[in-house]
């Protein structure tokens, strides 16, 4: 009996040890929620509040969990905002040409994956730093979208209420479908990252590139796959983004760049590669979304929203740092 208890204790401490970074993020989220609940319990106990949060949360979650792979591999991707735009445009173009919207989603996915692939090739084959080349890619794609659309948006209001619409952002028994997609994506990401050879190898690649090469890991392929994964995630987000706003505009996805990176970092994935946490990113995304909706509910001018983003980002980072030093 006693032995059993000890086993339990050690396994709990193991769990804490393993998920330290995600747990710190969870702590930040909890403290924030408690503060919001104290300030304005009415709003924060109202399910409608969460409905509003869920609307954007799914996109943050999907992008932030995909970003973990790229960041763990020791690279960075600053082009995903533009990929969201390009994939959204692909969807809209397909719709305009009268094809099935599902086909549009497929094309969007292919386009997203393809740009991710190009990113990967540029970085692994030409050996250009990902920070710079993805900035370039971002400009290139955004430029293409503006040129192609002549800067004009396209309304897709007519999709509202169709089975297609419901399949992506409708609701089932009151639960938003877009969150189900996000959940599915998170499960896939966790499986890949924690239980699959892909996650094991990408961690080694980000941790010690030379050694990974010497151990026969196909570094170029692994890194490229990570960029492709982000491309696919961007395409999924593009579909949700376009349907949620009921319009595609050429700047779609522009504002996502730094906020998604912030979610990843708040979540406890450090920028130096080798380690990361999908669950942390999910929590980081929640933190961002809660601030987003919570600020106004808490009676602060929405203009200060970004100030609080910044504050929480810096505080969370300091929290992670202290946590690192302690162990």
């Amino acid at each position, binding site marked *: 009996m006693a032995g059993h208890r000890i086993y339990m204790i050690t396994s709990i401490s193991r769990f804490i040890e393993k998920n330290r970074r995600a747990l710190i993020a969870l702590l930040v989220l909890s403290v924030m929620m408690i503060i919001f609940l104290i300030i304005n319990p009415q709003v924060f106990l109202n399910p409608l509040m969460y409905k509003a949060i869920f609307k954007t949360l799914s996109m943050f979650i999907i992008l932030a969990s995909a970003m973990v792979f790229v960041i763990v591999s020791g690279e960075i991707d600053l082009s995903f905002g533009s990929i969201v735009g390009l994939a959204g445009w692909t969807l809209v173009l397909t719709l305009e040409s009268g094809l099935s919207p599902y086909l549009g989603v497929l094309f969007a996915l292919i386009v997203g994956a393809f740009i991710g692939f190009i990113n990967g090739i540029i970085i692994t084959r030409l050996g250009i730093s990902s920070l710079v080349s993805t*900035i370039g890619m971002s400009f290139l794609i955004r430029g293409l979208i503006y*040129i192609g659309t002549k800067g004009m948006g396209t309304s897709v209001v007519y999709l509202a209420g169709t089975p297609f619409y419901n399949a992506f952002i409708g609701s089932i028994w009151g639960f938003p479908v877009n969150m189900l997609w996000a959940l599915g994506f998170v499960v896939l990401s966790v499986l890949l990252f924690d239980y699959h050879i892909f996650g094991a190898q990408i961690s080694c690649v980000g941790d010690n590139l030379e050694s990974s090469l010497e151990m026969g890991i196909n570094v170029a392929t692994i890194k490229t796959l990570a960029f492709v994964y982000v491309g696919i995630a961007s395409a999924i987000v593009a579909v949700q983004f376009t349907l949620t706003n009921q319009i595609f505009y050429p700047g779609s996805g522009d504002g996502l760049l730094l906020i998604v990176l912030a979610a990843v970092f708040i979540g406890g994935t450090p920028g130096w590669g080798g380690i990361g946490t999908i669950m942390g990113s999910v929590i980081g995304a929640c933190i961002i979304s809660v601030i987003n909706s919570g600020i106004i509910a808490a009676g602060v001018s929405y203009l200060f929203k970004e*100030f609080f983003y910044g504050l929480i980002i810096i505080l969370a980072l300091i929290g992670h740092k202290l946590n690192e030093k302690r162990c």
Partner: protein
Amino acid sequence: MPDLKKKQNNLDRNQEFRRSRRGITKFLDNNRRALSVFIVFIILMLLFIIKNPKIFLNREIYEAIFRSLPIRIVLALPLVFVIVSKEIDLSFVSNMTFSLWIFAATVKAGWDPFLCMLLAILAGALIGLINGMLVVRIGLQSIMATIGMKFLLTGLVAGGSNIMPIPLTFLVDTPFYNTFAGKIGNFPVQMIWAVVALVIAMLLFNYHKFGSDISCVGDNLESSREMGINVSTVKTLAFVYVGIACGFAGVLSGLTYLSFYPKPGSPDELMLAVLASVFIGGTPTTGGVGTIFGAFIGACTIRFVETGIIEAGLTGFWTQFFEGLIILLALTSHKFHKSR
């Protein structure tokens, strides 16, 4: 330890090697990246002039460019220092807006503009100092910490100013305005300030201890520490330098556009364009090496391309596309230089 000695020897040998070359060859070799960008720039200009001689041989277009270009140059130059030290700063645009806000608010309250400018620069420097402290003392990664700072400042400015624009038109033709944004003949004074900034940055980077220290720090942190370089101070100074530049650029932009107008959720375009000029100029992200002159040329290239595209009859929508293309091409060519 023996490893360290080996590296030390290598460093010494490299320096000897460098010293042994003289004059033009040395200059060419040290500035290969910057020069190749310069050549591309010249070719581009020739193309523009051939395609559209009326406009590109006209004074006015340069006047327009020389009014907005200095802001980017002033921002880009100190960034080289930060990037060479193997850090990055993503908060500089919001820092610029922040400093501009300080400047505009105080100047509107009737303070002496020179004093207000000093305040703006101090504010920028303070933010730089905080960035440096977060990175050096607390040990946050600069990319993460400065993203945080960017949001913090953007929100602070938006909330603090209530996104009310502050017009600065009343400054026109004051001695202050003429000092920083006036004209000598037809030549915008801003551009002279940009050149002053360039000279200062080049002096610091190539001839001052600060420059050589920062290169060592970015090249090999451990051995720099062993050699007695105060790594923390050097890195912090780089961030402060960026901050000072933000303050100055903020004032310049206030005087150029004659208003302070914070856009909520500020777009990251200017940030990416300025970073791109540093990278196009030939400063790699790997730390230890960089070129100030390259960043200068990089900023010019991007600005001229933007203008050239529009004047060539294409819509403004093409600018981003070409910027992206230039970034990718320039980097690929730098890569080939290196492997050669």
